[in-house]
């Protein structure tokens, strides 16, 4: 039997690859940014959508990747490749460390603890303004934004690099959620006590999932720094913890491609709304209320449900 889930996701990647030649410049840049932020959203989805950990502090992991790449690059003269790796490690390590403490709690307490850690990090960034440049942020000069000989400040290169990162993240996520470990993650989300009585330690399973989520977030943050040349405190603020949740909810929590779809929809929703009004957040709010009322499982979640058994085969 052919692997239909793999087919559907390879199809998405093929469309995005074709878009590289088809999209006009403005949308080309926009989609590149959406691809990078989708990796962040996918990381959030691993924690929230699949494992059921509602975090309000993921900006911490994104920002760890962002500054983990930007600071070595600008302050200590590391190369683009090593800075990228450093950001990835920073996001992963931060998630593991926070998980060790925060996973002693669950539910509302977990939300508050993660929010608290993220805010502490945000304030630390402002406090250490001498190195982080605080609110103003670090602008990474164009010559520094090279990885393995590729200039990530170039639009075409950037799009393809973003697509490569996105493809890796998407296929890894697809593999993960259909592997035995993915099944255990979902079991934790659905009924932690039952999973425990099947012999799984909830703490270690959730810690592993959160760490992986940190890896995704850190990778997205580091890639963002290199591709868009900027690391600022606003990207560590609470709105950057809420955004991935909204993207995931909009696209479909617990679906592999949902985070990308949600991120894309939200980006263009704000883009078009800003052409009409300055009250773009109002439009976003109305969209979210409509979502909760009419498609609480998000776009792909609703589609999967409507398709029944076929939906579970095509859209894991």
């Amino acid at each position, binding site marked *: 039997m052919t692997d239909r889930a793999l087919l559907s996701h390879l199809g998405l990647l093929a469309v995005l690859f074709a878009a590289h030649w088809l999209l006009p410049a403005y949308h080309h840049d926009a989609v590149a940014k959406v691809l990078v932020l989708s990796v962040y959203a996918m990381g959030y989805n691993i924690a929230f959508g699949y494992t059921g950990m509602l975090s309000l502090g993921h900006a911490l992991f994104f920002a760890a990747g962002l500054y983990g790449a930007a600071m070595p690059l600008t302050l200590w003269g590391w190369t683009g490749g090593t800075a990228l790796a450093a950001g990835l490690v920073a996001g992963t390590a931060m998630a593991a460390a926070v998980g060790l403490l925060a996973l002693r709690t669950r539910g509302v307490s977990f939300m508050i603890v993660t929010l608290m850690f993220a805010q502490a990090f945000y304030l630390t960034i402002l406090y250490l303004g001498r190195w982080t440049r605080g609110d103003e942020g670090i602008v990474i000069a164009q010559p520094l934004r090279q990885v393995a000989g590729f200039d990530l400040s170039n639009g075409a290169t950037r799009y393809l690099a973003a697509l490569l990162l996105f493809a890796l993240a998407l296929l890894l996520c697809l593999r993960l959620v259909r592997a035995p470990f993915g099944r255990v993650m979902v*079991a934790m989300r659905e009924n932690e006590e*039952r999973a425990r*009585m099947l012999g799984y330690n909830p703490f270690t399973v959730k810690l592993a999932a959160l760490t992986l989520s940190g890896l995704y977030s850190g990778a997205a943050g580091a890639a963002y720094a290199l591709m868009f040349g900027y690391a600022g405190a606003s990207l560590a603020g609470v709105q950057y913890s809420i955004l991935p949740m909204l993207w995931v909810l909009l696209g479909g929590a617990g679906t592999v491609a949902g985070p990308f779809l949600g991120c894309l929809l939200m980006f263009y929703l704000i883009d078009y709304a800003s052409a009409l009004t300055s009250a773009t957040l109002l439009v976003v709010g109305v969209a979210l209320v409509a979502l909760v009322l009419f498609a609480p499982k998000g776009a792909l979640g609703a589609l999967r449900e409507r398709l029944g058994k076929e939906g579970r085969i095509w859209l894991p």
Partner: protein
Amino acid sequence: MASLTLLEARGLVRHFGGLKAVDGVDFDLAEGEIHALIGPNGAGKTTFVSLLSGRTPVQSGTIRFEGRDITRLPAHVRVRQGIAYTFQITQVFANLTVFDNVALAVQGRGASKRLARETRAALDRVGLGDRADDVAGTLSYGHQRLLEIAMGLALNPRLLILDEPTQGLAIGEIEAFKRLIEGLVPERTVLLIEHNMDVVMDLAHRITVLNFGQVLATGTPEAIRANAAVQAAYLGGQA
């Protein structure tokens, strides 16, 4: 009957505030037997098996399983050592498929290569082989109970603890359940809490009666039936 002791509890105590749910219970489980735990509502049966499975921490006393002290082991470790627990109120993963429910139990003991085959075998054993792709929450209540048992069996346990397994089953389903349990011994040992006296008297090799958190009597079904104290406390007879 089997002579080796699989599980041995000594002086188990668990109080909830002033409520003495389990109050100094000594208990032995012989390898390969079907042992029924009965007693009036609130006698402490579920709390007692929760102590054995590790869902509730023991306040004092010891539990030995296959000769090892497991009193302080967390529940998920006890599962890996061979103590499986099925829930009183059915707790299958309602949003997952029947296959995934059982696969979760199978894969935890590291059977990755044989995962699909062993999962299907566990489903066939309880007669749910043709429902593998259904979402568990859409099954009838009786089938969900069978799924719960299939998950317990798929853990390949030495000891299977069943908390009121026949509750809510139809008469025909109860007969099938009895045959299923009889087929498990003597390779495995079964401890079941059960209210249905016909099931208890048919299945159990030995019975332990709990009352107010203490053991009132232990013995064969015949001995328990004839025990005056048990009749007074539970069976409603005039002692």
